[in-house]
C-alpha cells in the first residue's frame, strides 16, 4: 500500500468530515468532528513528508478546538 493511496484515503476522510460539518446541526458535536478533521489533516501532512507542518497543525488544531469549545459555552448548542 503505497503512500499515495493512504493520502487519497485520508483526503476522502477529510471530504467526508467537511460534508458532515456543513450539514451538521449540533455545534458541540461539530467541534469534536472539527478536532478529528484537524487530526486527519495532520496525518495527511505526515504522509506528504511535512513533519514540521504536521507538528504545528496538531498543536494548533488542539488550541483552536479548545477555543471553539470555550466559545460554545456562551452560544447555545443548537443551530439551524
Amino acid at each position: 500500500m503505497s503512500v499515495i493511496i493512504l493520502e487519497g484515503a485520508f483526503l476522502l476522510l477529510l471530504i467526508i468530515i467537511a460534508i458532515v460539518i456543513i450539514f451538521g446541526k449540533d455545534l458541540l458535536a461539530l467541534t469534536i468532528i472539527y478536532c478529528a478533521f484537524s487530526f486527519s489533516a495532520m496525518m495527511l501532512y505526515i504522509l506528504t513528508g511535512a513533519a514540521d507542518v504536521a507538528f504545528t497543525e496538531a498543536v494548533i488544531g488542539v488550541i483552536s478546538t479548545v477555543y471553539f469549545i470555550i466559545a460554545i459555552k456562551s452560544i447555545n448548542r443548537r443551530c439551524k
Partner: protein
Amino acid sequence: MEKKKIIGAAVIILAAVAAVIWAPDILPAVGDAESPVNSYLSTYYIENSLEDTGAHNMVTAVLADYRGFDTLFETCVMFLAGITALMVLSSTAKVDKSQREIQEPYKASFSGTVLDTAFRVVVPIIVIYAFYVFAHGETSLGGGFQAGALLAIAYMIDRIIPNFNNSLGNMTEEAAAMTAGVGVFIYILTGLLPMFNGGNFLQYEKLPFGAEHAAELHSTGIIMIEIGVVVCVMATIINILEVVLERTEFDD
C-alpha cells in the same frame, strides 16, 4: 437569503468541478522529482543550507534564515490577532467570579481526583517537551511556533482544569499582550543588530558577537529569533484564551 446561497453554492461547485477536470493535467504529478518545484530553488536549499546556516533541519533554515522576514511578519500576525481580539472584546464586561468563590468553597463538578492527578502529571511533561522542541529547533523537528504553542497548552490545561485557583501563575490579558509585544521586539532586535555591524536587516553573519565562522553566528541568530517567536506565540494564545475565558459564564 435562500436564493443567494444556492447561487453561491452552484458557482463554487462548478468552479471546483471545472478545476478538478481541467487542473490535473497541467499540474506536476504528485511526487515526481523533475517538476520545476522540486528542481529549482529546493536543490540550492537542500545542498547548502547546512554550511550557510548550520541548521540540520532545512525547514527551520528556510523559515528562520533564508525567509526570516516572512517569519517576522508571521509573528506580527499572531501579535496583531491577540491585540485585535483584546480590543474587540475589551468593551464587553467581564464575568466576575469573585463573589461566588467567597460564599461557598467552589467544587467544580467535573474536577475529580482523576483529573487533578492527570493535571499534576501531564503539565510538567508538556513543559519539558516544549523546551526540548525549542532547543532542538535546528537539529531535528520543532521550532519556535510549536514550542510556544505547547507552553500555551500547558498554561491552558492549568487554567481550566483545577478549580480556578490556578497554580501556574495568573496572566491578565493586558500582560499577555505586552509580553507578546516584547517577544516580537526581541525578534526585531536580532534583525537590527546586524545593521549596526555593516549587514542588511536579519543578516546573521554580521551579528556583533564574536565567532570564528559564519554558521555559528547563523545558529545563534536562529536561536534568538526562536526565543522571540516562542514568547510571542505563547503570550498571544494565552491572551486570546484569557479574553475569551473571562467573558464566558461557567455556571456548572
